[in-house]
């Protein structure tokens, strides 16, 4: 069964085998507001844990999307380019950003599970 983990920067990663699908949480999309532009990395780009993986822009501001764990980008969600609003309407479904081939699965242990993340968000007021 795929496990979903969350970073304190509000990215999620759903791991299937050695591939992780990465996106931003519902809380993050609510904070951003209407997403109008996304910049996705090149396939093959190597990202470090906590390093910049993508850019997401709302009407108001640009924000970085950080890689929750290290890895190599093996796929990006091209649908977001034409329809960035998918990030608002389906942040943990059709609004995924990219797929990473994980460099070190052990890093997943540093992330929060669903319950811990819900608690973390509740504490942010």
């Amino acid at each position, binding site marked *: 069964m795929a496990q979903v983990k969350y970073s304190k920067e509000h990215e999620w990663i759903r791991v299937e085998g050695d591939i992780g699908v990465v996106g931003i949480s519902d809380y993050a999309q609510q904070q951003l507001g209407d997403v*109008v*532009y996304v910049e996705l990395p090149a396939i093959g780009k190597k990202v470090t844990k906590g390093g910049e993986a993508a*850019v997401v822009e*709302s009407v*108001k501001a*640009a924000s970085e999307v950080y890689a929750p764990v290290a890895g190599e980008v093996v796929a990006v969600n091209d649908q977001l380019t034409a329809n960035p609003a998918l990030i608002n309407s389906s942040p943990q479904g059709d609004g995924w950003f990219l797929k990473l081939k994980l460099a070190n699965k052990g890093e997943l242990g540093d992330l929060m599970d669903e319950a811990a993340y819900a608690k973390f968000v509740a504490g942010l007021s």
Partner: protein
Amino acid sequence: MTAAETLSRTPLHALHQALGGKLVPFAGYEMPVQYPAGILAEHLHCRAAAALFDVSHMGQARLEGADAAAALETLAPGDFTGLALRHTRYSLFTNEEGGILDDFMTTNCGDHLFLVVNAACKAADIAHLRARIGGKVRITELADRALLALQGPQAVAVMARLLPAAATMKFMTFATGKLDGAECFLTRSGYTGEDGYEISIPNAAAERVARLLLAQPEVKPAGLGARDSLRLEAGLCLYGHDIDTATSPVEANLSWAIAKRRRATGGFPGAARILKELADGPKRLRVGIQPEGRAPAREHTPIVDRNGATLGEVTSGGFGPTVGGPVAMGYVSAKAAAVGATVQLVVRDVPRPARVVALPFVKPRYYRG
């Protein structure tokens, strides 16, 4: 120290909370950046119907005295002595170096001038007025009044229902009237590029009048986020971003706000530089910039030529909901300021093509009768 302890609140603060507004610090006030509908929907609703903005953080002042208009002319390049009764003008306080201290609206109300200035500048503006013309002019800050902006093509239908005399006012004119019994100062003006009104009302009546306006079927609340994207599409300057003490009115492409008579007579702060720039042209100019791709170019984005040499920087930029893509304005050196010129915007270290375009991005729909 928390923000809530240090920020001022407008008389509509409780209403913003009741409407689910997302409150953020702005110019010393706790203001709604958006409501639950979001910036995009609020922006589009303003262009399609009517939006209500709380702009009570802005400063309102009354200048009284026989010489008030002449005295104001010593601080700004407008023709205030020639301003017709119940007419409103946009103008600028300039400094001795020809930079801009603030931009403001002034109305000839007969026995006084009514001024509306920016929130972030209001304390300095009032101090400046008192120091420079306080001996001749009685200056009263109207801190007891709130300010609402009702903007959009259906604003007139709303006012026709609630205050019929307002429906026939022309753009940049003034009237008084009553909304739900509250004494209002109305100007047919705004800062969105749409037809609409700015409505000054006593603080005590502000929430009642705002609720009355919001109860009209055309009207929805809009926050500062939509106000910013609307004014950007309308090509209007935001003080502290597109204009400041380092930019002259000529560089800012606001020469239209320098009255014809004042070009001949001068007599306003910084006239030497400003009149020279009018005659010889400025070294740099505020222009509209249309990115060719989809990436928004935000404030401080470097503008360079095809060889990477600096031309200037973006002073306001983002996504234009009505345009449906990125829009920006900024300063470029005069040689690169021609409409149609190609430039590069350096966003996240990558130069991206853009064009200099005429402002505004969205054609204004002011009511001129």
